[in-house]
C-alpha cells in the first residue's frame, strides 16, 4: 500500500541544509499497524507528513496504492489527504468555535459531502469513538482523552484507508491514553492501516512492528517480540517523560 524507496527530505534552515530524512526505504501493507520511534529530531514527523502527502520528498520515490505520489499534481494530493488519509495530532488541532459534531463534519464540508449525509456520518463516527453524547459540546468542554477521541472521529469521517497519528497520547494521562490506544487497536482490527509516531514504548508495543529512526535514517526494524531489545539497543527503552 505504502512503498517508500530511498526517500529523502532536505530543508534549508538559515542557508544550511538539514537532512530530515535520508534514503528511507520501507513498505507498509494494508491493514498493518506500524509504530515509528526515534529520538527527537530523528525525522519521525517528517516521515509521517511525507506519507500523508502534507509534504513532498526532495528525492526518492513514494508509491501509494500503486501510484507515484511525486508525479501527482497538488490537487491530487489534496484529494488523497481528503479521501485516503486521516490525521491525528498530539495537540488535537480541534477548532475551538465548533462543537464536536462541527469538528467531525469539517473534512466532509471541504469534501463537499451533502449536508444530510455529512451529519449522519459524523454521528456514526462519534458513535464509533464513544462520543455520541458529546456531539454538542465544544472542545473546551471535553477532557483530554475525549478531545483526542473527537480528533480520531474527525480523521475517520472520510473513511480513510490509513490513519496517521503523531504522538496521539503525548498530551494524555495513562488512563485516557490507554482508551485512545484501545480505540486505535480496534480500528486497526477493522482493517484500518495505522502508522503511529511515538516516544512511548507502551504505544509502540501495540504495533505489529516498529521502525526506529535516527538522524533521518531507519536504523532498526523490530517485530513486537523484538521491541524491548531493540529499544534498549537504541537507548529508547526508558519510559519517557512524566
Amino acid at each position, binding site marked *: 500500500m505504502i512503498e517508500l524507496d530511498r526517500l529523502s527530505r532536505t530543508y534549508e534552515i538559515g542557508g544550511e541544509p538539514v537532512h530530515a530524512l535520508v534514503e528511507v526505504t520501507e513498505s507498509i501493507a494494508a491493514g498493518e499497524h506500524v509504530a515509528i520511534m526515534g529520538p527527537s529530531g530523528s525525522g519521525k514527523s517528517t516521515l509521517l507528513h511525507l506519507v500523508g502527502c502534507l*509534504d513532498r520528498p526532495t528525492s526518492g520515490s513514494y508509491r501509494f496504492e500503486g501510484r507515484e505520489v511525486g508525479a501527482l499534481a497538488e490537487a491530487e494530493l*489534496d484529494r488523497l489527504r*481528503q479521501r485516503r488519509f486521516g490525521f491525528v495530532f498530539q495537540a488535537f*488541532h480541534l477548532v475551538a468555535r465548533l462543537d464536536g459534531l462541527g469538528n467531525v463534519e469539517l473534512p466532509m464540508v471541504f469534501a463537499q459531502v451533502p449536508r444530510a449525509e455529512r451529519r449522519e456520518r459524523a454521528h456514526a463516527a462519534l458513535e464509533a469513538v464513544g462520543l455520541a453524547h458529546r456531539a454538542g459540546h465544544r472542545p473546551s468542554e471535553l477532557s483530554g482523552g475525549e478531545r483526542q477521541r473527537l480528533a480520531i472521529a474527525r480523521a475517520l469521517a472520510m473513511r480513510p484507508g490509513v490513519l496517521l497519528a503523531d504522538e496521539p497520547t503525548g498530551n494524555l494521562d495513562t488512563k485516557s491514553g490507554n482508551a485512545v490506544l484501545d480505540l486505535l487497536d480496534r480500528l486497526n482490527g477493522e482493517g484500518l492501516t495505522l502508522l503511529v509516531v511515538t516516544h512511548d514504548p507502551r504505544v509502540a508495543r501495540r504495533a505489529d512492528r516498529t521502525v526506529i529512526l535516527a538522524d533521518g535514517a531507519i536504523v532498526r526494524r523490530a517485530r513486537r517480540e523484538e521491541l524491548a531489545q531493540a529499544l534498549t539497543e537504541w537507548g529508547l527503552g526508558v519510559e519517557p517523560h512524566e
Partner: protein
Amino acid sequence: MSAADLAAYAGRALAGHRLRSLLSLLGVSVGIAAVILLTALGEGARRYVVDQFAQIGSSFVAVLPGKTDTTGAMPGVGGVPNDLTLEDTRALERALPQVDLIAPFVVATDEVAWRDRRRQVMVLGVTAEFAELRRLSLARGRFLPATELGRGGSLAVLGDRLARELFGNGDPIGAAVRIGGRRCRVIGVLAPRGQQLGMNMDDVVLVPVATGMRMFNRSSLFRIVIDVGPEGDVEAVKARALEVLVERHGEEDVTLITEAAVVDSLSAILDALTLAVAAIAAISLAVAGIGILNVLLVAVSERTAEIGLLRAVGASRRQVLACFLTEAVLLSGLGGAVGLAAGAAGVRILVGIWPALPAAPPAWAIAAAVVLSLAVGATFGWLPARRAAALDPVRALSGR
C-alpha cells in the same frame, strides 16, 4: 464547498471575535452610510432645482441682452450690444401670436419707504403678464393692470413680508410708498410665496416695467421671457424670436435660453457635484477596507494552526483562500447592509428636518454602495486570504 458552507464557516469565525468583527464592519457601515446620505443630498438638491422649474410650469424661452457665446466676429465689429427694449417686446408679440405670454422685466435693488420705515428690497419692473408667468396670487388688492407697454404709472405691488414689515397689521392698499425717491401707490399685496428661482418673492416690490426703467434710468430690459405654453414648439419660437431680434438689431447681440437648457445644465452641474461628493465618501470606504485587511491579517496569523489542519484534512489552497475571502466579503457586505440602513434612516431624518428638500439616494448610488461594499471586502481580503492559502501545511500545523 458550497456557498452556504463557506458562509457558515466564515460566519462562525467572525462570530468568534465579535468586537473585532463589529468594529471593522462599522468602518464599512460609516463609509456606505456616507455615500448614501451625501448622494441623497446631492440628488435632493438636483430635484429641488428641477421642481422649482416645474413649478413655473410650461416651457419658456428667455431673451437676454448681449451675446454670451463666442462668435466669429472680427474685433471691433459688433461691440456694445444693442439694448433690449420694449419695442423689441412689441415686435416679438407681433411675430409670435401663438405663444401664451411675453413678459419683459427689469430688476434693481432699492430702498422702499413708508413714513419712517425703510427696507432695501429687490424692485422688479414687470408687466401684468408677470403674475401669470410666475403663478403669483394676491393676498389683497389687485396686480398691475394690463396697459400699453410704454405707460408706466406710479403703482406698486408689495411682497408679503415687505408689506408686513412696512405696514405691520395695517392695510397697505392705497398707501403711497417711496421707491427710489418716487412715490408709488400700493394697489396689491402678494400672497406668501417664498423662494422662487433664487428670488424671494415675499421680499420684493413690483412696479410697471416702464416705471422701473425710468426709475433706474435703464435703457435695456433685464429679460424678456416668452412662455411658449405646454404644447408650444420651444425651438421654433426660439428661432423665430432670434430672427426678429437679429433683423431689428442688425446683428446677433442677444442670447436666448430655453428652460430645458437651463434645467439640463443645472442638473448636470448638480449631478457632477453628487458624484464628486460620493467619491469623497468612497474614500472612507478605502479606510474601512484597511480595517478589514488588518482584522484578517490578525486572523490568519492567529489561526495558522487551523489553516494547517484544514490542509491536512484535504482542503485545497483555493478552498482556504475562499474561506478567508468569504470572511472579508461577509464583513464588508454586512457592513454595507448596516450602512445602507443607517443611510436610509439618515435620509429620513434629513427629510423630517427639511421637508422641502426631496432628498433620496439615487438608484445608482444604492447599487454602487452594494457593489462597493462587496468590492472593498474582496479587494482588501485578497492579500490575507492569499497569505493563508500560501502557508505550508506542515509549518502551519506547528503554528509557524
